[in-house]
Each structure stands twice: as structure tokens, then as C-alpha cells.
């Protein structure tokens, strides 16, 4: 009986995920060794992530595919992959101090690795079912990571809130997936062109399904109106987890939205364009206005992250044309500037203990000039002021938006950017112009690992600004093939 046709598995296509999972499970066993050993776990964790860069030359220009086309590596997914690796590396560096004397280090790295494997699957998957499963793997590990270092009621509340809202959004995504399947009979991206649907009657069902899928993804990128969880979850989680949470899942979810746009060519339909416009404009307006009145650093960064998502969604709007490269460039810069800013929060909360208010930054420029400089670069970049990468990211996004005729959205974006200057500069003002009342508390304590990493991040941002045009042209997905 040979009527079955076996699919080609091509195990190389999930090579990075297999390595991550195997290593993660090994980390779980570190409980058996004396507690001293787990102190040094961050070193192998980083080395393994570095090793994953090895896959780059294999996958580049090769279009490795596996599992009957459910997994496909093209150069764009490679780019997302690199971004995810950077985000995870930074998160491990940030968490190093926290985990030094923590017996749960093994579990932490296991969950981080599982989340990372889920995200890599998300950026390479070409099947909505696989996307859903990998998104669930990511979410489950993130729920636990948020509540892992819980110290009190607030942390628990943050985790439960994130868990409940996350489950709802997953359910919405799944419902949308069911409707899409009902309308088209397929879950693979390639067979999901609206044009391939046989009868026009099915289109309505199909579009409702796509909107629900977008809502599920909108939760992951924390776009308005699915943003409620973000500030609370970031504040409740440990700062290093918050840094990871604010960057990595957004990259993965944007990769899926990007694929929906590029392969299915969905965002030329007016209904769906309207959905994205509402999400984008809402995120920019609400995120920026809410950030204005925040006093805690992490909450301010959370709302600023929501606003940044709004800018990035403009890139989604103009996807078939120039939006792709602009969006990828924005994500590239976003990883460094946002995680850098969160890294400063990690650093300050380690020094101070507890959550950091913006006023706590006073006098930082005197005590720790390099850290203050790095923070200033991150803020300037988030605000979008010329010498940094953030300016060029915004510039290209806005330019492609205007070229595609979305003038209204871009005008909202520009106004929102001007508003955002206030709260970004408040941080810089606090660092450079205010004096600390009880004398200098930021004693310079010799060489430290974390500030060095942060300084590198700031340097990368400045470099991004200098080589922006070259970077942009090399990011063009069409050209790289």
C-alpha cells in the first residue's frame, strides 16, 4: 500500500529550534549541581546563542524549506532571525546580575530558549497553524517569565493580567484561523491569496478571519486597542524580562503581519487598510499622550513602545512598495534603542533597588557620565533626532507613507513625534540638569559589564544613523534574492 506520499521533512530547516530546545532542556538539569555552578550559566547561554549565527551562511540565498513548505527560510526571515538573536543576547546580558545568586537560573534560561525557539518558528513559518502553535509556545513561556521573580502582589497581578488577556487574544486568533480555514479550506500562506478563493461569497468570511488574526497579533505587538496589558506586565516583571518582552515578541509578531501582507497581499483591501490605520493612529496618539504623564521609567518606556508600534504599522500599510525596507530598518533600530533604554532601567534598579522613577535619574550625568550618555542617545533616538538611527528609521517610514498616499496618518505621526519630545527630553533634563539632593549616589564602581554593553548599544545606534542609506538598500527584500 503505497498511496501515502511522505512529506519532505528536511530537518535542517528547524535546526536552530532543535538546538535551542536541546540546550534548554540541559539547563533544566543544572539543579543537580551545586548552586555555585548556576552562577555561570549565563556564559554557556550566550555562547549557544552566538553559535546560532552559524546558520546564517547556510540559509542565506538558499531558500531552505521543510515540512511540505510549512517552514521556509528566505533572506527576510533570516533578518528577523538575526534581530531575535540580538534581542535574546541582550536579555541574557541584562538578566545576568539578577540570576547570579538565583537557584532558578536554569529554568529561566530554559523558558527564554523555548520562547526564542517559538519566535524563530514564527518568523519562518508559512502555515497559519504553525504560526499559532509557535505563538502559543512563545506566550506560555512569557507568562511564566513575567511572574518568575515575583516578590509581591503586584507581580502576581501583572502575570495573571497578562495571562488572561493573552489567552483571550490567542482564542481570537484561533477563531480567525478557523474562519479563514472555513472560507478557503487551507492554512498555508501560499494558498491564501484572496484571489484564490473560488467564490466571492466566501470573501466576507475570509476578511473577518483575517481581522481576527490581526487582532491576535495586535495583542502581541501591544498596539491600541490591545495594549492594556503592556505597562502593567512590564512593571510587574523583572526589568530584564520586560526588556525582552518589549522587543522580541514584537519582532516575531511583526514578521507574521509582514508575511500576511507580502504573500497574501492583503493590505490593499480597503477594509483591512482601515483596520491597520486605526491601530496605527490609535497607538501613536494614545501611547504618546499616556506616556506624557508617567512618572515611573518603565511605564513611560512601555507607553513609548506602544507609540513606536504605531509608527511601525505605517510601514505595514505601504508594504508592497517601499514599506518593507523601511519597516525592517525601523525594527532593527528599535531593538537597540528600546532594549538599550530598558537596559538602563535594569542597571538603575540594580543600583537603587526597586522600581525607578524618572526623577531618580537626577544627577546621573555626574556620577556615571557614560551611562548617562548612553541613555541620552537612546532617548534621542527614540524621539527621532538626526544623528541617530531613530531619525532615519522614522524618516524612511514617513517618506514611504507619504509616497503611498497616507498623508493623514503621517501628519498624525509627525504631531505625535513632536509631543513625544517632551517626555523623552524630560529624562535627559533629569540626568543632566537636575542635582541630586542627598549628594552623589551613583558612585563610579570601576568597570562593569552592563554599562559597557549599553554603551555598545548606543554606539550601534549612532552607527546605524551614519550608514542608514547603505543599510536600507541592503535590506530591500527584492534585491537580496
Amino acid at each position: 500500500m503505497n498511496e501515502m506520499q511522505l512529506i519532505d521533512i528536511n530537518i535542517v530547516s528547524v535546526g536552530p529550534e532543535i538546538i535551542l530546545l536541546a540546550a534548554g532542556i540541559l539547563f533544566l538539569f543544572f539543579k543537580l549541581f551545586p548552586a555555585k555552578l548556576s552562577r555561570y550559566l549565563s556564559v554557556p547561554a550566550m555562547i549557544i546563542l552566538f553559535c546560532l549565527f552559524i546558520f546564517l551562511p547556510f540559509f542565506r540565498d538558499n531558500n531552505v524549506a521543510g515540512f511540505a513548505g510549512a517552514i521556509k527560510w528566505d533572506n527576510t526571515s533570516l533578518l528577523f532571525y538575526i534581530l531575535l538573536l540580538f534581542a535574546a543576547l541582550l536579555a541574557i546580558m541584562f538578566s545576568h546580575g539578577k540570576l547570579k545568586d538565583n537557584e532558578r537560573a536554569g529554568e529561566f534560561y530554559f523558558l527564554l530558549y523555548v520562547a526564542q525557539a517559538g519566535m524563530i518558528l514564527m518568523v519562518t513559518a508559512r502555515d497559519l497553524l504553525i504560526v499559532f502553535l509557535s505563538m502559543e509556545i512563545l506566550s506560555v513561556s512569557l507568562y511564566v517569565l513575567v511572574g518568575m521573580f515575583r516578590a509581591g502582589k503586584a507581580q502576581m497581578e501583572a502575570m495573571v493580567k497578562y495571562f488572561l488577556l493573552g489567552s483571550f487574544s490567542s482564542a481570537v486568533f484561533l477563531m480567525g484561523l478557523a474562519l479563514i480555514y472555513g472560507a478557503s479550506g487551507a492554512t498555508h500562506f501560499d494558498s491564501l491569496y484572496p484571489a484564490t478563493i473560488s467564490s466571492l461569497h466566501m470573501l466576507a468570511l475570509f476578511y473577518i478571519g483575517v481581522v481576527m488574526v490581526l487582532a491576535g497579533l495586535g495583542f502581541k505587538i501591544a498596539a491600541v486597542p490591545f495594549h492594556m496589558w503592556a505597562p502593567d506586565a512590564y512593571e510587574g516583571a523583572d526589568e530584564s524580562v520586560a526588556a525582552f518582552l518589549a522587543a522580541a515578541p514584537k519582532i516575531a509578531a511583526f514578521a507574521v503581519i509582514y508575511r500576511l501582507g507580502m504573500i497574501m497581499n492583503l493590505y490593499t483591501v480597503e477594509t483591512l487598510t482601515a483596520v491597520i490605520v486605526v491601530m496605527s493612529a490609535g497607538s501613536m496618539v494614545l501611547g504618546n499622550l499616556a506616556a506624557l504623564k508617567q512618572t515611573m521609567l518603565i511605564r513611560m518606556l512601555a507607553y513609548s513602545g506602544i507609540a513606536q508600534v504605531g509608527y511601525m504599522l505605517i510601514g505595514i500599510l505601504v508594504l508592497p512598495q517601499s514599506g518593507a525596507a523601511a519597516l525592517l530598518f525601523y525594527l532593527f533600530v528599535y531593538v537597540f534603542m528600546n532594549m538599550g533604554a530598558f537596559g538602563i532601567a535594569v542597571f538603575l534598579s540594580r543600583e537603587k533597588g526597586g522600581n525607578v522613577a524618572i526623577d531618580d535619574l537626577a544627577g546621573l550625568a555626574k556620577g556615571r557620565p557614560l551611562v548617562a550618555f548612553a541613555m541620552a542617545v537612546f532617548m534621542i533616538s527614540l524621539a527621532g533626532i538626526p544623528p541617530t538611527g531613530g531619525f532615519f528609521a522614522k524618516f524612511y517610514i514617513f517618506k514611504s507613507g507619504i509616497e503611498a498616499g497616507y498623508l493623514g496618518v503621517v501628519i498624525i505621526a509627525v504631531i505625535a513625534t513632536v509631543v513625544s519630545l517632551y517626555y523623552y527630553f524630560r529624562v535627559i533634563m533629569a540626568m543632566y540638569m537636575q542635582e541630586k539632593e542627598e549628594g552623589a549616589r551613583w558612585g563610579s564602581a570601576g568597570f562593569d559589564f552592563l554599562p559597557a554593553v549599553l554603551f555598545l548599544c548606543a554606539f550601534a545606534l549612532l552607527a546605524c544613523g551614519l550608514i542608514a542609506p547603505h543599510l536600507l538598500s541592503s535590506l530591500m527584500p527584492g534585491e537580496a534574492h
Partner: protein
Amino acid sequence: MIEQAVFWILSIIMVVSALGVIMMKSAINSVICLLLTMLSLAGVYVLQGSYIVALFQIIVYVGAIVVLFLFVVMLLNIKNIRREVAVDYRNFIISSLAVLTVAGVVCILWYALRLSMPEAGGDIVPAAAGVKEMALELLNRHLLALELVSVLLLAGAVGALLIGRKE
């Protein structure tokens, strides 16, 4: 025609008991309602001709999950879960907004389904879902999905142990 009648009866039972899950005052009654929902859903699967799915629905949900729910409810001895909510104009606004949203979603879905009706009504393919076909599909075309579910369960198990552990 008898299929139609069975379908509508099952659907009405399902919707009413699903409403009962969230509206019953005592937790035990809610769980019983959930059981009823699951059973009628299994009935719908039988109507579609996918007997295996119906079987799994009964074994997994009714046999394992709902019974587990019952045990938990009884062990924790939860008698009355509904706390008195203060009657407040904000609550009223929010709940009416929620009702409006749900009604809107239902209307849109209904409209979309109506549009798709002429196509979908005629040719429902009875799924050839024997155990063998299902196993072959699962281990061949959906191999990756199957493996991913196992990873998901592993992550969930580790997470549950971490969260549930006493300090």
C-alpha cells in the same frame, strides 16, 4: 431533515449551557453546564461524520478535564463564587459596551456566514476520519504541528511547576 432537527436541538442545548457556565451562582453548577456543552459539541461532531473527534471530545474533555474541574471545585469547597458587585454607573456603561460589542461581532459573523451560505450549504464533504487515516495524517502532514504541541506541553509543565512552587 432529521439531521437538521438534531443539529438545532444540540445547538440550543450548547448555547444555553454555555451561558449557564458563566451565569450559574454555584461553581458546581457551572461545571455541570460545561459538561453539557462538551457533550452536545461531541454530538455536533457525530453529525458531521467525524466520529473519532467526537470520541476524543468525550474521552478527553468529559472524561478527564471536566472531572478534574469538579474535583478542584469540591476540594477547594467553593460555594459561592459570585461576589456582589456594587451597582455603579461605570459598571453599567462597561457591561453595556461589552454586550454591544458581542452583539456587533455576532451580527457581522452572521452576515458573513449568510453571504457564504449558498456555497457552503451544498457540498459538505463527509470527512473520512478513520483512526488509520487520522494517524497517517497526523504523523505525516501535520508532523511539525504534533511536535510543537509536545514542546508547548513541556513549556507549560515547567511553567506550572515554577509558578506553583512554594517559596
